[in-house]
């Protein structure tokens, strides 16, 4: 029982990281149809932001609290620069954007290598995140619990933004029908840029959070990007609730498989399971339901 609960918890925290990355992708991929392979590098930028902030602040606890909003800003600004300089010229050309953003990702990795060096960097964890906390009679690592709570908090913030604010309604309208959104007075280009900022900023936060689990290197983002896209596709493109279910399901499934086999085998089995699932349900867990085609 203890193994079962601990694997569930490990899976949920792994899913929480995937969720943070995938929520941003759901916004950009779902809204603009842009396959942004550089999204992982925004995560990397967030992780290096945590490293730099820690060096500047000199206190791990305060450093983390400062790094979270700064990582969001750094990731978000990188996203806006990419959207304004490259992606806005390539809407409706998904394969071109895939190739170009993959190239941009490689450039960003090399920039990180040149600036910070190839060896991975460690960011010290705050003392208040060391140790474990008893939950349901089991000891859970504080860092993973923090990650889970951070992910849920970000998700709730995004949901509140989308459901309760005028900006959120504009984003949802643009996702659903771009032409119609323009004809009710919404500047879809401005909405695109804001959405890109939000989505990329969330990747930045994910990068900061990942420094709690391990060291930071130039390819940290690339190792997550494929899984994050799979979460978006399995959840149903543009569907946040599907993204949540897919992220945690894949995280937990992978945790159990890793425990029973190895990391590599677990990845292969998860990918195969996703291939089978998409054969049965190509639209993902959730699909848009409406009486009209609009």
């Amino acid at each position, binding site marked *: 029982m203890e193994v079962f609960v601990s694997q569930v918890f490990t899976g949920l925290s792994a899913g929480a990281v995937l969720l943070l990355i995938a929520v941003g992708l759901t916004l950009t991929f779902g809204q603009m149809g842009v396959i942004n392979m550089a999204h992982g590098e925004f995560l990397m930028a967030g992780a290096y932001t945590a490293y730099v902030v820690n060096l500047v602040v000199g206190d791990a606890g305060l450093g983390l609290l400062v790094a979270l909003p700064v990582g969001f800003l750094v990731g978000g600004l990188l996203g806006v620069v990419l959207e304004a300089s490259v992606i806005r010229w390539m809407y409706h050309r998904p394969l071109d954007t895939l190739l170009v953003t993959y190239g941009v990702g490689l450039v960003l990795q090399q920039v990180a290598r040149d600036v910070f060096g190839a060896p991975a960097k460690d960011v010290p964890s705050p003392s208040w995140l060391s140790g474990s906390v008893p939950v349901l009679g089991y000891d859970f690592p504080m860092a993973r619990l923090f990650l889970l709570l951070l992910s849920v908090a970000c998700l709730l913030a995004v949901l509140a933004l989308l459901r309760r604010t*005028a900006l959120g309604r504009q984003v949802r*309208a643009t996702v659903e*029908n771009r032409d*119609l959104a323009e*004809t*009710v007075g*919404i500047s879809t280009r401005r909405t695109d840029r804001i959405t890109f900022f939000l989505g990329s900023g969330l990747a930045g936060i994910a990068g900061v959070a990942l420094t709690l689990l391990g060291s930071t290197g130039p390819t940290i983002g690339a190792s997550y990007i494929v899984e994050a896209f799979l979460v978006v596709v399995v959840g149903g493109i543009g569907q946040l609730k599907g993204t949540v279910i897919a992220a945690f399901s894949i995280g937990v499934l992978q945790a159990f498989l890793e425990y029973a086999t190895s990391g590599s085998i677990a990845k292969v089995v998860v990918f195969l399971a996703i291939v089978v699932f998409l054969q049965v349900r190509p639209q993902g867990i959730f699909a848009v339901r*409406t009486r*009209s085609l609009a």
Partner: protein
Amino acid sequence: MLELQDVVAAYGRTEVLHGVSLTVPAGGATAVVGHNGAGKTSLLRAAVGLLPLRSGRVLLDGEDVSRLRPHQRVRRGIGYVPQGQQSFGQMTTLENLQLVARRDRAAIDEVLDTFPALRDLLGRRAGLLSGGQRQQLSIARTLLTRPRMLILDEPTEGIQPNVVAEIERVVADLTRRGDLSVLLVEQHVGFALRATQEYHVLAAGRVVAHGSTGDHAAADVRAVMAV
């Protein structure tokens, strides 16, 4: 008010409008009729900026708006009710209205007075409304943009007969307001001519006839369309 001058537009290499010119006077109502594929919807899409012009101009109160994006034209006063009862199906009826009105509850109440059937449907997802209800929502949402120039693309198309009468009544009321100019595309020639003062017949992307909607207009239009 709204003036289309020698409008040429294309989808890719296929030209669909070959130099169309028409004017909707301030406070007036103009109908565009024609068979399927004549270019009626393309003409309206060109007027609101959804279809780029190859040449020609779109003027609103003398100002050239040809280079403005659709949302900028909406802010200048062009309201557009597209074909096919389009709404944001994932959003509720109220959210569809709030998208334009934001927190202006009085403005929402005003359009709900025009379409009282929507009052009981405010919490329902627009995608689950009937075609007629969605069309009413579409017109209500457009009216919230406070247009001076209202462009309607086949507002009664594909709607159950009992709602058609309601929509015809609202459109006719709007064309009589005087402070609103209306450009109406409609398959239903009788209604189009009753609700407007001028008509244009479009065929294969060209205006082939135009005139005032007087006593003989219906016969004239049908004669042209039968050719």
